[in-house]
């Protein structure tokens, strides 16, 4: 299990790095899908089965496909977007690195997190999540429909060709 964790993590980080560094958007999408699939693996390792499934369905199945569609629809792969100057690139890397260091420092500084409840491996199961979702989190669940409706309206508004 430990090995699996590090293995997945390695793939994830490498593919994430590749997402950032590849020239072609198509390749980026592919790497991102790899990354998301490993993420699903992580969820399984954490016994969050519901999330693992949703991750596969929503992210790799829907979102990334959407990306692919758009790229192909707009023929984005052919468009060459000028890369940034090396100075900005270095600045970006340094900023990111600093950010990383600072965050790591902040999260590790002499503080021990105590688990809130006694360990229970079942919380990630569909039934548990479902209970929580339709109990405590019913209102947000209902309201998330508003998000969808507005994003739908938006997509239609933008996408529709007016006469």
């Amino acid at each position: 299990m430990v090995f699996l964790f590090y293995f997945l993590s390695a793939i994830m980080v490498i593919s994430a790095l590749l997402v950032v560094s590849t020239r072609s958007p198509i390749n980026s999408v592919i790497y991102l899908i790899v990354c998301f699939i490993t993420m699903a693996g992580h969820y399984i390792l954490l016994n969050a089965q519901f999330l693992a499934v949703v991750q596969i369905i929503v992210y790799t199945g829907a979102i990334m496909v959407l990306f692919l569609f758009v790229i192909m629809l707009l023929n984005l792969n052919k468009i060459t977007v000028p890369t940034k100057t090396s100075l900005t690139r270095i600045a970006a890397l340094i900023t990111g690195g600093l950010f990383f260091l600072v965050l790591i420092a902040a999260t590790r500084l002499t503080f021990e997190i105590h688990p809130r409840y006694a360990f229970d491996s079942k919380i990630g199961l569909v039934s548990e999540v479902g209970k929580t979702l339709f109990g405590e989190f019913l209102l947000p669940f209902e309201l998330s429909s508003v998000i969808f409706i507005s994003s739908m309206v938006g997509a239609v508004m933008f996408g529709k060709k007016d006469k």
Partner: protein
Amino acid sequence: MIPHMNLALLVPALPLLGFLITGLGYKRFRNNQAGIIASSAVGLSFLISLSSLFVLRNSGQDSATLTLFNWISVGKMNIPFAFLIDHLSLTMMLIITGVGTLIHIYSIGYMHADNRVNSFFAQMNLFTFSMLLLVMGANYLILFIGWEGVGLCSYLLIGFWFENPAFNYAARKAFVMNRIGDLGFILGIILLFFTFNSVSFSEVFAQASSFQVGAPVITLITMLLLVGAVGKSAQIPLFTWLPDAMAGPTPVSALIHAATMVTAGIYMIARSSVLYILAPTTLTLITIIGLATALLGAIIGLKQNDIKKVLAYSTVSQLGYMFIALGVGAFSTAVFHVTTHAFFKALLFLGAGSIIHAMGGEQDIRKMGGLRTKMPVTYWTFLAATLAISGIPPFSGFFSKDLILSKAFEHNFILYILALGGALLTSFYMFRLLYLVFFGEQRLAGSHPHESPKVMTIPLIILAILSVFGGFLNVPTLFGGDSNFGVFLQKAMTSFSGEELSHTTEISLILISSLLIGLVILFAYRTFVTKVLVPKADGEPMSFFGKFITNKFYIDEFYATIFEKPFRFLSGFLYQKIETTILNPAIEGIGVATLKLGELVRKIQRGNMSFYFFAMVAGILLFIIFILTI
């Protein structure tokens, strides 16, 4: 309260009324109407003054106070609008209204051709009113009102012919120099107030006795008051305005710049004699100032060629003598000289006016000459005045000036010598003037001088009589008199009662001075009548001293260099450098800098998304570091 004394209120009121009538209705008067109204107003004042004198005498009291209303009453400061009638003020009132009446009448003739004659008389009346306020005021502030009022009228009348910028400049100069003195005066009054909690003469003088001789505060007060007197009475260093003041019409010079206003300083010091007695230092200073002014005026007078300028410097010089008298503590003598001086100097000026009138406005004595036959009345009256000012016995000037000289002798021998020297110079330049104007040939071609009309000559004659006999008001004991005038004034002021000179000394002094003056007159006669020596024209080369004196010791230029130019420079500097270059831009600079900063801040918003991301991330990063390190 003295019965009928309220009548004295009419003395200032009548000229004020005259001023209002002539001033407000000036458009409606024709011909001489304004002049007649003005003259009669002043004339009536004179009569009332005279009657007041008798009222006061009959009442057996020394003084009377007439209170109109409370002028300023703030806290401890209580200043009534009140008049004080005593012998000193009565003397001055009589001089002012008496000489004033004559000059007003004279002006009717002198100014008849001027198209603003009405406003001229209005201003003359206003002046008379102010001057009366000055001498009648029962406290220093009322005095100050008059003091400033006469300054104003002097300003107006000097600049009467306002089309000429030089005249206006002279007027302004007179006013400003007076104001410099006035500042000292008002500060003196304020200090006086804080010292005595009052500014009215009676209370101040009553309390003054509690101070020791030479008390610093009294010295300071007297010094400050002296500054005012120096300005008003044209003493060194504030005398240069007086010669320039001759820009005004000649009657103005006679009334204001010879007979009355310039003597206000002497009046004020005489009035404050109680205080000055307590301040020997100040008295010494007054003596020195007076002597220096007397000599300086006389020396400059030697080389002047403008008839009015000669008289102006002579006035300066005579005022110096009055100061000497004050300085040696002979206050009544000073006032006596004021009186006689009023007679003969007014006469001289009016005579000069008559001459100028006759010469069609010409004032340069080098262009005159031989007027003796053409203008006999003028000549004789002028001669009388010249003799009076030179101190020839028994003319009025003799009595007053001789008294001053003897007091000076009492005081200090060197002072006497210098004063006598000044007197000699006086007679020299006065006779130089007389000879150049009336003797010899007529030097200005094409002019037809003629005697002035009666309205002008009659005042001349009256004044001549006064000049000749005025001295008998105060015949010293030496000549069997009883110094009436001095005794009369004693009631209003104190004096040093130094030991009397022995009669022999006095007689020898008189003899010496008379002899010397005679010699000087002779010398002048030889120079200007026998040799017919006319002063050189302006352009011709002169000896160094001659040039120095002709140019009045360059004092005007000196003042211009050390006061006027620096002030102009300072004004320009403050405006152009401080205000326009530093202060304004500094305040505006804050605004401009803010705008610049705004521009800079605006430029941060570059419209570039990558930059926005960077900025946000950098912001977050900095805030994390901030909260972790703090």
